[in-house]
């Protein structure tokens, strides 16, 4: 075999090895172009006339969408099989009648349903009283915040006078919950273990939400004070986390400065050898 042949063979060997290596490396790097598939309900309804696509549009802005609760979460059916997506044998329920709405939502929101049924609103179920969707919305389900108690919404059925008193009594607590929730969310986004804090806030928030359907102003005020005390305990833990992050940044500044000083010293030392 001549020298030229040897070189040619070596080149071919290199090419083959490289192509094998590239085939191994490239597909994973390239594959990210795919995006997550949505349930067939959304895929199909999005293409239909407005009457049928509107629920999808509304749902996209809902708290359900934010938490990954898709159509089948409430309406049942098979979200992966277009042909049987609305087949009752696959658990499809469709839209509930008005009187059945609390039970429909209450499959997940068990405690809230209990509070609602015990409230003045719940006692009027089927007699012209509001259901869950009257205040919380239909498809565009809103997060249960105090803003839901507002003059425009409440005045549709009765005067806002008592509702305003309740609203004002709960305002400060609501603001604390929102602020704490935001702080926990921010810590969670950076890998802090917020499980315990989230559970504590969840319990406190649930207690707070039970007041939403209550019309006893004094009870609401008393409970709000107790809830605020519990929220302050969570704030203390969050303050400690903030402090720890502040200390980390100070240590970081010291470490970075130290490295820059070393770099400068090495640079000057190198100059002495010129």
């Amino acid at each position: 075999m001549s020298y030229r042949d040897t070189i040619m063979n070596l080149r071919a060997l290199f090419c083959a090895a490289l192509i094998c290596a590239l085939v191994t490396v490239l597909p994973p790097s390239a594959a990210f172009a795919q995006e997550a598939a949505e349930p067939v309900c959304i895929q199909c309804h999005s293409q239909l006339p407005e009457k049928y696509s509107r629920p999808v549009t509304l749902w996209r802005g809902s708290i359900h969408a934010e938490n990954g609760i898709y159509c089948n979460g409430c309406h049942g059916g098979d979200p992966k099989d277009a042909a049987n997506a609305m087949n009752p044998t696959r658990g499809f329920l469709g839209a509930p009648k008005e009187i059945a709405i609390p039970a429909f939502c209450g499959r997940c929101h068990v405690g809230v349903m209990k509070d609602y049924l015990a409230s003045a609103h719940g006692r009027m179920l089927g007699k012209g009283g509001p259901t869950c969707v009257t205040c919380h919305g239909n498809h565009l389900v809103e997060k249960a915040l105090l803003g839901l108690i507002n003059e425009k919404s409440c005045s549709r059925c009765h005067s806002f006078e008592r509702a305003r008193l309740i609203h004002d009594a709960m305002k400060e607590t609501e603001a604390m919950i929102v602020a704490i929730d935001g702080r926990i969310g921010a810590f969670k986004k950076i890998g802090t273990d917020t499980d315990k804090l989230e559970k504590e806030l969840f319990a406190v928030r649930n207690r707070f939400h039970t007041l939403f359907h209550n019309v006893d102003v004094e009870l609401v005020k008393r409970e709000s004070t107790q809830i605020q005390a519990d929220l302050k305990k969570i704030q203390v833990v969050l303050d400690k986390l903030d402090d720890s992050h502040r200390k980390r940044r100070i240590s970081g500044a010291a470490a970075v400065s130290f490295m820059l000083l070393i770099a400068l010293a090495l640079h000057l030392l190198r100059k002495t050898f010129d």
Partner: protein
Amino acid sequence: MSLIKKVVDWIDVRIGVREVVEKELTGYLLPRNINVWYSMGSILLFAFVLQVVTGMLLLIHYVPDADKAFKSVTFIMNDVPFGWLIRMCHAVGSNLMVVVLLFHMLSVLFMGSYKKPREMNWVTGFILLSMVQGISLTGYLLPWSQLSFWATTVATNSANAIPVVGPHLVEFLRGSPLVGPPTLGRFFALHVAVIPAGIAALIGAHLFFLKRTGVSTPPFGQKETANQWQGEVYSYEQHPGGIPFFPDFALEDLRSIAIFMAIFLAVVFFDPYLFFTKDSFIPANPFVTPAHIKPEWYFLANYQTLKIFPNELIGLSLQGAAMTFLALLPFIDRGPERHPLKRPLFLACAIGGLLLWIGLSVWGHLS
């Protein structure tokens, strides 16, 4: 006679250590016009060691089990003393290693140091780049977060685009039809054993080739910038009158490493989340698909290329062709000239290619 001298004498009479120091450090001469870009290799070596050390420390508490992986990473981040620091160093280090690796390759490219007789240096370096990408990809799955799970799902799924063997390859990569515990097992093995061993071996080969060919002279500030090697007999590129590696260039290397460390620590302490998304801290859930899954920044150009072409196989083939071209560059670009300004065609192609890569990456990020 000091104690140190006694110890050195004791060793010297046994293994001739002074001769080694003279040959490999103080007598190892480098070109007088050597520049800071020649320190990139040393920074990379340092970064690799840093990755190995932090990786070993993470291994103490990490559990490669689908049910426990996320919890173990959360434990490291929150309960292990300085665990957050070790993990962030590992994560930030992997990203900065790619940055330095790209700088290293670009400097070699623009200074024409890949040209004969240094083809093997280039090829081993290119394979090292692929392996670093591979180790980053396999490491991505280990925290078993939403990002890990879904990024690996779509990444492995892409192999489906390969005709005939695609579906079998996907199952082989995953170890099961879907990403699951077997995938974590094999990715863990690849990440902590197979690929690091491969990288270490290739670094060895890369340094061996460097030692055998000698350090290339930068083409800047020289009258004659053409490659002098004729390709007939082996010859070591010597630099008579050059600067010694120790202490002169070793100090420059250390200074570059210190600057790298300052940047690295600034990212670790002030914005380590630069390389994380919120899905990185949510446990993997096969039933909840995040809306948009994007790869690490250095794969964004590949990601966008695939989105441009309607057929995934075309996108893959095009990328494969571009990568193969780059890998085989020393065998294609055989002209003797090394100065970038005396190679206008090369310069136009290199800058155009670089801008295209940056443009596609930015587009991928914003899309």
